C-alpha cells in the first residue's frame, strides 16, 4: 500500500510538472466540448439553393419567395438554363436546384396539377435526405395555398380535409440537437484523454529506460500498475466533472437522472479504458506505436458507438461488433441517465457488461506486463 503511495505521488508530480501535457489534459477537452458540440450537428442549414425559372409568372416568383423566406435556404441565384445549373453543382456552388417549367402557373390553375424538378447534390446522403424533406415541405405548403385560392375562386363550398399528426417528442422536447450531442462528446473526451495518457505513460518509461530500473526492484506488478493508473483514473473523473459543469453552464443540458449513478458507472468505465491503454503500452516499444494503435481503436470505437449514427441502422454483424465497444455503453448510459433519468435498475445490463470488460482488460494488462523477458 505504502509502495503504491510513492508511485502515485511520483506520477502526479510528473504530470503536473509537464508543461506540455497540462494544456492537453485540461484545455483541449474543453475546447473540444465547446467546438464539437456546436459544429457536429445533423441540422442542415444554409443550403445553397438556386433555381431555373422558365415560367416567370407571379406564382413561380411566389414559390421562390417561399424559399427565400425560409431560414434553411440561402437563395443564391437563378440560372438561365439547365446546363449552367449543372456546372454550378459540379463545382459545388449550389446544393439544390429547383426547376420551374414553362406554363407552371397556367397548368396549376387550369389542370390543377403541375411538375417541379428538383435536383439535389447527394454526395452527403444524410444531408440530401434532409434537404429533400425541407423542399417538399415548402412546396407542399405552397401547393396547398394555391389549391385554397383555386377552391375559393371556383366558389366551391367543399373545404379540404387535412389530417394533421401531432408528434410528441419525449426527453428532448425542443428537439435541441445539443441536448443529444453534448453528453456524447463528454464521453469522447473522457475516453480519449484517459486512453492516450495511460497508453503513452508506461511506453514513455520504456523509452527513457526507467522502466528497466523499476523492473530490477522487488516491486510487485500489481502495485506498480495500480500506482501508475490511479492518477489517470482521478484525471478521468475530474474531466467528467469539468465536462458536466460546462454542459450545464454553456449548453444548459438537462440532468434529469442521478449524477451519483453516472459517477459510479464512469468510475468502472475508466478502468476499462485504462486497462486498454496499459495493454497497448505492454505491446509497444515507442510512444509513436502506442499512439497509432490507440488511434486505430479509438476511431473504430467512436464510429461504432452510436454517438453519431444510430446503432439500430447498422448491419447485423456490425451491431454484434458494437457489443464489444465500451464507448457504446458509456454513450448509452450518459444519455439515459442525463436525459431520461434512468435509474440503477435501468442501467444494470450496461453496468454488468462494463464491469466484466474492466476485469478482463485489466486482467490481460497485468498478465501481459512482464518484469522478466
Amino acid at each position: 500500500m505504502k509502495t503504491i503511495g510513492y508511485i502515485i505521488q511520483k506520477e502526479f508530480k510528473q504530470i503536473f510538472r509537464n508543461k506540455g501535457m497540462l494544456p492537453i489534459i485540461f484545455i483541449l477537452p474543453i475546447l473540444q466540448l465547446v467546438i464539437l458540440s456546436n459544429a457536429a450537428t445533423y441540422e442542415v442549414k444554409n443550403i445553397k439553393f438556386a433555381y431555373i425559372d422558365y415560367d416567370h409568372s407571379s406564382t413561380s416568383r411566389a414559390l421562390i419567395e417561399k424559399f427565400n423566406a425560409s431560414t434553411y435556404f440561402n437563395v443564391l441565384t437563378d440560372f438561365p438554363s439547365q446546363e449552367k445549373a449543372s456546372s454550378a453543382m459540379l463545382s459545388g456552388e449550389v446544393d439544390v436546384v429547383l426547376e420551374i417549367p414553362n406554363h407552371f402557373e397556367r397548368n396549376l390553375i387550369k389542370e390543377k396539377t403541375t411538375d417541379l424538378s428538383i435536383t439535389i447534390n447527394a454526395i452527403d446522403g444524410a444531408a440530401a435526405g434532409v434537404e429533400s424533406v425541407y423542399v417538399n415541405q415548402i412546396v407542399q405548403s405552397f401547393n396547398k395555398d394555391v389549391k385554397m385560392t383555386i377552391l375559393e375562386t371556383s366558389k366551391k363550398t367543399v373545404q379540404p380535409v387535412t389530417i394533421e399528426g401531432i408528434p410528441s417528442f419525449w426527453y428532448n422536447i425542443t428537439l435541441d440537437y445539443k441536448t443529444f450531442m453534448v453528453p456524447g462528446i463528454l464521453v469522447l473526451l473522457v475516453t480519449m484523454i484517459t486512453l492516450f495518457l495511460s497508453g503513452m505513460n508506461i511506453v514513455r518509461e520504456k523509452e527513457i529506460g526507467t522502466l528497466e530500473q523499476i523492473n530490477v526492484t522487488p516491486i510487485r506488478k500489481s502495485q506498480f500498475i495500480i500506482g501508475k493508473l490511479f492518477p489517470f483514473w482521478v484525471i478521468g473523473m475530474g474531466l467528467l466533472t469539468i465536462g458536466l459543469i460546462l454542459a450545464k453552464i454553456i449548453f444548459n443540458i438537462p440532468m434529469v437522472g442521478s449524477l451519483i449513478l453516472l459517477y459510479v458507472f464512469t468510475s468502472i468505465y475508466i478502468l476499462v479504458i485504462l486497462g486498454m491503454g496499459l495493454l497497448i503500452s505492454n505491446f509497444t516499444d515507442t510512444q509513436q506505436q502506442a499512439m497509432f494503435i490507440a488511434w486505430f481503436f479509438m476511431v473504430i470505437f467512436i464510429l461504432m458507438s452510436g454517438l453519431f449514427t444510430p446503432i439500430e441502422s447498422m448491419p447485423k454483424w456490425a451491431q454484434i461488433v458494437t457489443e464489444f465497444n465500451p464507448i457504446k455503453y458509456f454513450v448509452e448510459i450518459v444519455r439515459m441517465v442525463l436525459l431520461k433519468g434512468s435509474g440503477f435498475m435501468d442501467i444494470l445490463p450496461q453496468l454488468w457488461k462494463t464491469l466484466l470488460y474492466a476485469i478482463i482488460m485489466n486482467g490481460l494488462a497485468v498478465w501481459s506486463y512482464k518484469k522478466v523477458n
Partner: protein
Amino acid sequence: MKKENVIVAEELTKAFGDFKAVNAISFEVKKGEIFGFLGANGAGKTTAMKMLIGISKPSSGKAKVAGFDVYTQTESIKKNIGYMSQKFALYDDLTVKENITFFGGIYGLSRAKIKEKREQLISELGLEGISNKLVGSLPLGWKQKLSFSVSLIHEPKIVFLDEPTGGVDPITRRQFWEMIYKAADQGTTIFVTTHYMDEAEYCDRVSIMVEGKIEALDTPKKLKEQFKVASMNDVFLKLARNIEL
C-alpha cells in the same frame, strides 16, 4: 578464510533464435569482490548481466545470485541487488530529493529510513545546495554518481553497474571509482562492466567476454603475465584480435 560465493554461473546461455548472445559462461564472484566484466560492444555483457539481475530469462545453464535462483527466485534476487544501467535511469523531471525518496519507497524502506538515507546521501555527494533541483538539470557526472548512490539505497549485497562511467570526464571517473571502493570496503560485492581498460586495472578480478564467451578470467596482474603484455589494454586487444583473425 575462504569467502563465500555470492554469484555463481554455470554454463549460462541466452540465445535469440540461432544466435547465442551469451554462450555457456561459467564463473564465480566472491563476497566483497570488485568483479570486472569486460568485453567489446556487442560481446554479450549486458545480456549476461540482465540474466543475473532477473529481468531476462536464461535459455539454459544455471546461476545463483545472492543464493537465489535466476529462474525461479527473481523477485528475491531483486531485493538483494542494486542496479545501475548504461542508460541513465533516474527521473529527469523529479528533483534529487524526490528521486531518492521514490526509489527508497519502492524498495520498501521506512519513512524514517528514507529520510536518514536521503540526508546522508545528499551530504556525501555534496548536493546540499541543489537537492531541490530537477535531476535533468544536473551535469552527467553528477547524475551518474547520484544514480550509483541510489542503487545502493537499500543496502544491497551486490550491485550491478552496466558501463557506469560512459561519457564522463576522467576526474569524475576517478571519483566514481572511489565510491565503488568505498562500497566494496563495506562488504558490497561489485559487478561492473566497462570497456575502459584502465578501469579494469582497478578490479580485483576481471573476465573478458568475446563473442558471447568468456575467453579469460583472472586478476589483472595474472592476465598480464599470461599474455606477456604490460597493460590490460594489450590483453584485451590480443584476445579481440585473435577472434578477428
